[in-house]
């Protein structure tokens, strides 16, 4: 490599003239494109090794009967059986519905709250920086930490959350369990996820709000537009692309949600909060159904990838308007 980087006319001590000229010819022989490839090759090799190869391998495994807890059994090619099994399994569809409910509820709440916070933070007031930092704190925490401390907060006998609810409603604190009741648990995971990620939506919305030029508002003021009218005609339309971006990011993330929900409820009570990512983890690393779980992972990947693509196309259209 050092030889290649030597300038054409540099003297290289200890290197004979014919050798030097060969090296020079090689440097001259490399096109810009070849040099570019030379630089990106290690990255591509790394990507191939840790992303593409496992993906291809997973696709291959999804057509087999491989179960790692019974690796002594001969590996059989089962065609589309794993895919058929998954798509005809009522439980999988219920898990997908649970996931969709979680994604829609949590993202909707995060957008409303995040946007509201962004509108508040966008104004100048005393302690502005302090409150901005405070609001951003939850999203800086690890989901594992969030899951664990909310579990303690929700503990029916000693958790402050139940006492707080009791204070406002008069319901005895130990008479309900946020993570253990079928009616409450799905809302509990939405609540915690919103608490953690609404600040992230707020940040994106804030970027959108700050990108609106002041002169538009000044023109509206001259036209005597009310604050409400300014919000509907200027603020909201001009931040819609940012809101849509926030929805995209959060929806993809929540579709994959695992850690926080696993710590809060383990998918329970029963299977009430078992998101499809938990089903996948159980199939792959607890039941060791490698072939089946590879097929499930592919189905989920295609679903998210397809939905995200359609969404991005819509987003681009909105931007163009």
């Amino acid at each position: 490599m050092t030889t290649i980087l030597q300038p054409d006319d540099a003297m290289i001590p200890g290197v004979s003239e014919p050798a030097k000229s060969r090296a020079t010819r090689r440097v001259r022989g490399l096109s810009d494109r070849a040099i570019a490839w030379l630089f990106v090759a290690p990255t591509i090799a790394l990507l191939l090794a840790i992303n593409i190869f496992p993906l291809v391998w997973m696709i291959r495994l999804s057509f087999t009967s491989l179960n790692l807890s019974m690796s002594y059994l001969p590996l059989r090619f089962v065609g589309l059986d794993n895919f058929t099994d998954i798509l005809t399994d009522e439980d999988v569809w219920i898990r997908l519905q649970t996931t969709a409910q979680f994604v829609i509820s949590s993202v909707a709440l995060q957008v409303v709250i995040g946007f509201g916070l962004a509108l508040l933070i966008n104004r100048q007031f005393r302690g502005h920086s302090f409150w901005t930092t405070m609001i951003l704190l939850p999203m800086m925490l690890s989901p594992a930490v969030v899951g664990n401390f909310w579990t303690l907060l929700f503990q029916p006998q000693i958790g402050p959350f139940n006492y707080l609810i009791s204070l406002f409603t008069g319901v005895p604190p130990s008479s309900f369990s946020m993570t253990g009741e079928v009616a409450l648990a799905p809302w509990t995971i939405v609540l915690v996820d919103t608490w953690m990620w609404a600040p992230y939506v707020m940040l994106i919305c804030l970027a959108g709000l700050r990108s609106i030029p002041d002169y538009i508002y000044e023109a509206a003021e001259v036209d005597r537009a009310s604050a409400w009218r300014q919000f509907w005609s200027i603020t909201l339309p001009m931040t819609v692309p940012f809101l849509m971006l926030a929805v995209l990011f959060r929806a993809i993330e929540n579709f994959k949600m695992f850690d926080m929900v696993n710590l809060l409820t383990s998918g329970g009570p029963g299977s009430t909060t078992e998101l499809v990512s938990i089903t996948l983890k159980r199939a792959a690393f607890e039941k060791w159904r490698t072939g089946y779980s590879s097929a499930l992972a592919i189905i989920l990947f295609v679903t998210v990838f397809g939905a995200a693509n359609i969404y991005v196309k819509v987003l681009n259209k909105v931007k163009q308007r």
Partner: protein
Amino acid sequence: MRRLKWLGGAVTSAVLGAAALVVTGGGEAAAQGKQLTLCWAAWDPANALVELGKDFTKQSGIEMKYEFVPWTSYADRFLNELNSHGKLCDLIIGDSQWIGGAAENKWYVKLNDFFDKEKISMDDFVQATVVGYSQWPKNSPNYWALPAMADAVGWTYRKDWFSRPEIQSAFKAKYGRDLAPPKTYDELKDIATFFQGREIDGKKVYGAYIFTERGSEGITMGVTNVLYNYGFSYDNPKKPYQMQGVVNSPEAAKGLEFYKELYKCCTAPGMTNAYMQEGLDAFKSGQVAMQMNWFAFFPGLYKDPNVGGDKIGFFVNPAGPNGHFTQLGGQGISVVATSDHKDDALAYIKWFAQPPVQQKWWQLGGYSALKAVVDAPDFPKSAAFAPQFLESMGIVKDFWAEPSYAQLLLDMQKRVHDYVVADKGTAQQALDLLVKDWTKVFKEQGKQVASQ
């Protein structure tokens, strides 16, 4: 001169060093640099094993290193290690249900030749532990582990509460009998109902603590204690893998209904996803009158300054209308097939199997399965819970130990938790679905499953 001084100093250092190593007993270890890694769960008995292992190092010169993982990730972590043919563990104390998969997949070294050579006889160990922890196929003379930690589900109760005159008279007035540790599940439910919500020493207490954990094995390890005693079996003893009408018999459904009733009537609020640790916390904080848990924790509970000693009592899992059994726990110790130190690992097992070592193991807080220890005349008096442990080991039943046990276990976790905690469907429907799940798993495994 300078060279001589250096030589003299070196000789002196060497002599002093050698003397120090002999005194500390670590001479051979340092000299040979041998080390073994033992993998197990992170719990009270593991600390006892570390203490015990010091004797092995002293004798053999082999250093012991330990890899202890919390119970909630114990199976995931080590099955992953075994599946990937990792070299982390030389010795593993694996759960009883792993034995089928470990034998079929050749994760463990088969110990028959070694036992023959070292004159270690499986007849010297409690029969239930040999079948449960060592044999695969079950009841065949093929040994893959040495019984290491005998364990079963038992119960603790607040002896001090039970003995209070005002509580005794109130109980007698209500149920017409003396308040005593229950012999049957109906009695247990009466006592749990009696204590539920009662105020003791100005504090509201609850009836019973039972396993309800969803993620790993908790609710299954709890509910089976009731199911076995109501008539549940895993399959027809005459027709292996025939589960229809056995797993989901009307009697089994009644047992499942009973477990749900017990959960609804008599447990503390919020116990919707609780296993060993939550039970220990509930009992130690004086919240519950009775606690279901593994015997492995009882030495620690007995020593507890708040609820141990005279305040705690122990009883065997109560009987049901159709039998008297309890869930087997515990593990055997095995040599990992991919280990580079198999000979040293076998030397550890040989050392561990010796009666004096087993005796010390029991004294330190481990549970020996060696008959010489547990059948000794003074054994029942050696600990407050020893008689109950001995009785329990005579009535144990274990979950499936098939290579596909993880799938079978997770299916049961789901069906039982759905019914007991999430109020989904009926007990009969839950068990019918379980039969369907298990049939599918066995068919995938290539087993012939008879429908009737």
